[in-house]
């Protein structure tokens, strides 16, 4: 026979009722913009002037999503970084290892596209800062203080 503990039945119902009037957590995202934090990892930003074309970022990328490609920059042919965001997993190791801080991270998290080709960012496209959105400053560029080729 089941003993009916009345308190153990009414208390959950009371708590459920109370929750009807509590504050919601949901952010109505497409209507309301999300607020990224200072450190949110979003799209990269690339500074061709600083880049020495050493290729450390491509070497350390765990998913091989980066490539040095030839392109035309200020009338000169040179090599630059191209990122395939279809493969990128935003681990940020490339930024960590860049010796000249030519690669930074912004907190622009909206990197959507309708096809895979438009997810491949050419060097020129990467060097354009991402658009600021509806009053929220998206472009806080971040580097890591230590640089270079050691785990430090």
């Amino acid at each position, binding site marked *: 026979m089941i003993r009916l503990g009345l308190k153990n039945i009414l208390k959950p119902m009371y708590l*459920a009722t109370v929750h009807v009037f*509590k504050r*919601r*957590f*949901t952010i*109505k995202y497409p209507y309301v913009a999300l607020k990224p934090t200072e450190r949110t990892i979003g799209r990269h930003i690339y500074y061709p002037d600083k880049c020495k074309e050493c290729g450390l970022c491509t070497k350390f990328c765990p998913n091989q999503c980066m490539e040095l490609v030839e392109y035309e920059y200020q009338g000169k042919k040179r090599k630059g970084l191209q990122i395939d965001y279809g493969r990128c997993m935003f681990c940020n190791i490339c930024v960590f290892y860049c010796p000249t801080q030519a690669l930074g991270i912004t907190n622009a998290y909206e990197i959507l596209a309708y096809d895979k080709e438009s997810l491949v960012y050419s060097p020129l496209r990467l060097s354009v800062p991402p658009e600021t959105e509806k009053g929220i400053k998206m472009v806080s560029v971040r580097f890591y203080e230590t640089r270079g080729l050691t785990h430090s």
Partner: protein
Amino acid sequence: MDLIDLAIKILIFPGLAFIITILVFAVWFERKMWARVHLRIGPLHVGKYAGSLQLIADFIKFAGKETIIPSKADKLFFQTTPIIAVLVAGLSMAVIPFSENWIVFKFDLGLLFILAVYSLFPIIILLTGWASNNKYSFIGALRAVFQLLAYWVPLGLSMLGVVMISHSLNLVSIVNAQSKFWFILVQPLGFLVCFIAALAESERTPFDIPEAEGEIIWGWITEYTGINFGLFMVANYLRLYISSLIITTLFLGGWLGPRFLPPIAWVIIKSMIVLTAIIIVKTSFPRVRMDQLLRIGWRILIPLAILNVAFTLALIQLVPSIVV
């Protein structure tokens, strides 16, 4: 003239059109309330106000989907049971009064009719589960049959007290008998038993065993897709809503209420309150196991219901003026 009147009642109010409208509203209300308890927002995009037309969008989506019939299913029953389920569920609507005159069939044995309709569901569910030819469907169907049969008895017994006081099986006279006081005041035990049994009959948590999602997928509707699935959902919501309408009629005084609102509004408001109570119960308890469910049904609810009948008898003997 009578024929036109009947046609209006069947097709518009409180027939088909009304059922659809109230269903859209009830489902929207349930989902919104449910979401609120969950700290969610619920339907948001469709409709002018807070996703109010979400159900219509859902139904269009169901209708647009492919209907898959498993190759080894019994095709005749597999395709007809959804329609039968909706028809049978909607049948009870015919005897529920929304005001003195707003009733499709004025029928002296209305309550008996409702109980008879309730007793049809196990057969439909068993047929559905069997026709699907799926182990999960079959397990679900068997569970449903056990559950619905076990809870049909306390449901009927708990209504007996009301019948004894009002001396009628006619739902209109039952409501009229409550003009002095609502029956919930003299039948608290009956109300409790009826509420729990109605929960079980409409397969809501904590008694959603036949369609326990984590255990047996969707129980007896596992194999259904598209519009057939949608029809079953309609049937289930209808059963839920009719349960709350019956509780409203039997214990909460039906359309009775202060004059500033029309009687129909009172029925809807009261049934929504019952629905809210059902939602609160639904969200605050886990589902019980089959053996526990049957134990609650046979060993607790039925003795309580019988106790209620005895209590009513004593009440009638002691206070004869209570009987109308």
